[in-house]
């Protein structure tokens, strides 16, 4: 097969031998890839140390048949993840972006818009200006791109408009809000302030990221809701959740 090109975000690197790495990449053109990078741990090589976590690079690779890992032949660094602030929140947010892409996307299942979103989110996280908000926005957009966004306004049981105001039932298991009629007997139901749901809708629909401050209470509740929802989706707690502070910008 001829070599293929792609733009890629480095999600994870694992030492494979004294000189080689196995690298997990999220590419704009092909979705997630697992590649073998021979000689990547040498100082001078075809990869010029482009294969650092969260780096964005231009790659050339050879597709292998079924079982074998694809072979990386070239990687040129486009942008390194370099923190502008002295806070680690942005870095941990970046790791979380990588973890979610790694857990929720599939090999050779491309999502170019999701790639662009991740790319943009990593730039913003490195700046470290509105980390908590950027992470939440990424989570909601990721869910939307993958068709996993919970229903936030219509009852997942009967489709009726769930009245705003006060608290609303949110079914993790059923994937969205529940009206009072549909709620009884449902599993893993959280009670959520409708302000929180409104913020979720805004974040999920926002075309451009913003630095508009979010009040601590809403941020805390939203973080808790997302933690639970992702843990439910993945069937386990994401590793980075413990590192996502509750008191970030």
């Amino acid at each position, binding site marked *: 097969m001829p070599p293929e090109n792609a733009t890629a975000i480095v999600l994870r690197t694992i030492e494979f031998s*004294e000189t080689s790495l196995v690298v997990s990449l999220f590419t704009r053109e092909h979705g997630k890839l697992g590649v073998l990078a021979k000689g990547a741990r040498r100082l001078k090589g075809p990869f010029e140390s482009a294969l650092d976590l969260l780096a964005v690079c231009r790659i050339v690779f050879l597709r292998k048949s079924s079982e074998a890992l694809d072979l990386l032949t070239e990687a040129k660094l486009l942008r390194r993840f370099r923190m502008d602030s002295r806070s*680690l929140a942005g870095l941990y947010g970046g790791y979380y972006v990588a973890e979610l892409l790694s857990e929720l996307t599939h090999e050779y299942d491309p999502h170019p818009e999701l790639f662009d979103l991740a790319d943009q989110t990593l730039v913003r996280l490195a700046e470290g200006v509105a980390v908590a908000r950027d992470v939440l926005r990424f989570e909601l957009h990721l869910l939307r791109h993958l068709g996993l966004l919970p229903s936030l306004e219509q009852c997942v049981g009967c489709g009726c408009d769930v009245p705003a105001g006060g608290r609303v039932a949110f079914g993790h298991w059923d994937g969205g809000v529940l009206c009072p009629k549909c709620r009884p007997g449902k599993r893993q139901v959280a009670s959520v302030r409708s302000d929180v749901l409104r913020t979720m809708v805004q974040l999920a629909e926002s075309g451009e990221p913003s630095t508009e401050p979010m009040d601590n209470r809403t941020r805390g509740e939203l973080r808790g809701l997302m933690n639970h929802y992702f843990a439910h989706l993945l069937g386990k707690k994401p590793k980075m959740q413990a590192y996502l502070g509750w008191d970030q910008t």
Partner: protein
Amino acid sequence: MSEATQSVSELIDQLAKLPGIGKKSAERLAYHLLHVHKSEALALADAIRDVRENVRYCKTCFNLSEKDTCELCGDPRREDRLLCVVEQPRDVMALEQTGMFRGRYHVLLGRIAPLDGVGPDQLTIDALVGRVRAGGIEEVIMATNPNVEGDGTALYISNLLADLPVRVTRLARGITTGSVLEFANKEMLSDALSGRQAF
């Protein structure tokens, strides 16, 4: 041949567990060990036993040592006021080979890598902060690997040390960013040491 086969296949299995050794290489190594002079093969076995029974981590700096305190910590000629923080014992070796650094070391035994399940608590960071708190150290040089995880680890530690009366510096970017210390050559490491900057 059936009993011999069992010991041989046990050896192959053990060798194949080593990093970078596949089944084929393990077989080659096993048959090599059967062919060389018996004393040569047993010398390897002794060396492995020796290392595991005698080598431990220095209780001060966590470098590899044959005693409770390593030679570098025990050397009275080295400067106590300079402390160089590295990820692995092999980084100490790389820096020692430059002959440029005359201070003390602290080995973290890893880097903060949450995606690999390694948090700050699994490293020797508490002991490091304890050493700095005990006084006598003027400068802490962060010589973690120049990649995202190494930088993150250095930042985490420098934030912890921020309130203590010590200067925190980082190796200069002489070493290719995104790489690891152990593969840098002597000249690069010397440049990185002499050009270190305030964190």
